[in-house]
């Protein structure tokens, strides 16, 4: 069973991974350790299962995210870029929800993304409210 978070009236209070439902994991692909750790801490407090990946390569080493999962990916990753991660995730047979995050100026983001526009793009600094709204 797939948990439809978007159907929740108050998404922040949804409790992912409830008994009998598929385990939902939020994958964070973020190279800044402070941002990755803080985001994971907050999401765990909200009740999410969290996996942190400091780069794209470590995400690829694990089994691909499930369709009920959410992947929060920073666009400015070293090595394999966030845009390539988005492209890869979007082409999965059952792609997860993708939330792109970036602290770069708009023109740089536009140049990085090209035609690979993610459905959700959040610009840093991030707030709990902005993240939870999309989970």
């Amino acid at each position: 069973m797939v948990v439809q978070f978007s159907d929740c009236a108050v998404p922040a209070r949804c409790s992912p991974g409830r008994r009998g439902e598929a385990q939902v994991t939020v994958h964070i692909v973020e190279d800044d350790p402070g941002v990755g750790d803080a985001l994971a801490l907050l999401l765990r407090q909200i009740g999410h299962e969290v996996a942190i990946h400091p780069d794209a390569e470590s995400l690829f080493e694990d089994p691909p995210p499930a369709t009920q999962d959410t992947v929060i990916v920073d666009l400015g990753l070293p090595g394999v870029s966030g845009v390539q991660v988005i492209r890869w995730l979007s082409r999965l047979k059952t792609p997860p929800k993708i939330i792109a995050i970036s602290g770069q100026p708009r023109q740089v983001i536009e140049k990085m993304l090209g035609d690979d526009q993610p459905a959700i793009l959040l610009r840093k600094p991030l707030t709990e409210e902005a993240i939870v709204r999309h989970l």
Partner: protein
Amino acid sequence: MDEDQSGGGPVTPSVSEARLSSVLGTAVDGIVVMDHQARILLFNTACEKLFGYTADEVRGQNVKILMPEDFALAHDRFVSNYLTTGEKRIIGIGREVRGKHRDGREFPIELSVGEAVTPEGRQFIGIMRDISARKAVEQRLAQAQAQLVSMTRISALDEMGAAIAHELNQPLTAIMLYLQAAKRQASSGSGADSKLVEIVDKGVNEAERASKIIQRMRRFVEKREPERRAVAVAPLIRECLELVTLGNACDGVAFAIDVEDDLPQISADPVQVQQVLVNLIRNALEAVRAVEDKRVSVSAGVRERDMIIRVSDSGGGVPAELVPNLFKAFSGSKKKGLGLGLAISRSIAQNHGGDLAVEQAGSGGGAAFVLRLPLSVGRASAEAQDAGEGMKGSSE
């Protein structure tokens, strides 16, 4: 009786006068001869065109008639002072002064004055050239340069703002999220600490305030879109070279422009593109300063749907270790300046939907900077402009 200077023997006064008359009539420059009381004795054809008076009208009149009031007031004093003290203010020196046309219009002239001692007393010969056109060009270039300086300052602020916003974003994001997590932790469960929650809440508010400052700063920087219009590239390049050579010592530097015929116009902000090119040409000039063979060339041509403008030099090239950070703000290796020039230039190129890149070994042997600008506003840029403040699917 005069001696014929060509060695043909003595000439009659009528021949001498005819010769003088021909010289005065043919001269491109205005020639005025006046006596020691500043009365006009001679006024040539070029002067008639320059000032709008005929020779007959001004003959015998004080030369002040040709000067604006402020000059005219001082002129008698200058002449009298020179005749009594011998102190030269203009004779044999030459200077830029203002003339006054018959219709009252003032115009800049370059005036040189000579003196002759004749049987009829001391006479002064003034030779004048209208420099209105040259002054207009100088003024236009000065205005363009001032505009460039102003744009560069604005761009530097933009670039600095963007860099600060970007650098602060990461730690601020972490602070916000940690505080929000701490607040949740402090307020959960039976042992909730209301005082701690209140303190953390204040911390969250302050972090949010800092976050809003960053967002405002970013919006301010990002809303500055190029003011596009159709721009002809060849004259723009020529003007950039004029601007650079105007204010820099360019001795011994060979400049070359290689622009394809019938280049299409580009849709761009001419001041911003000029800013990029002036910066690149100045850099090139600096790169060749220490080398013997000083060459700077600018070429322009079309490649697919882009205009490619290449600025190359015969300098030492860009060291390989500098290339990765060459276009980053505050990363310059120059002793003067903030190292924003190339960062700004690339931002401008990217704002136009193009880019700026470096080739380590350009055609001149040194570095070559390649500016790529789309010939027309592309789909991506148009979408970005339509999207306005935000981005497709983005929120803050």
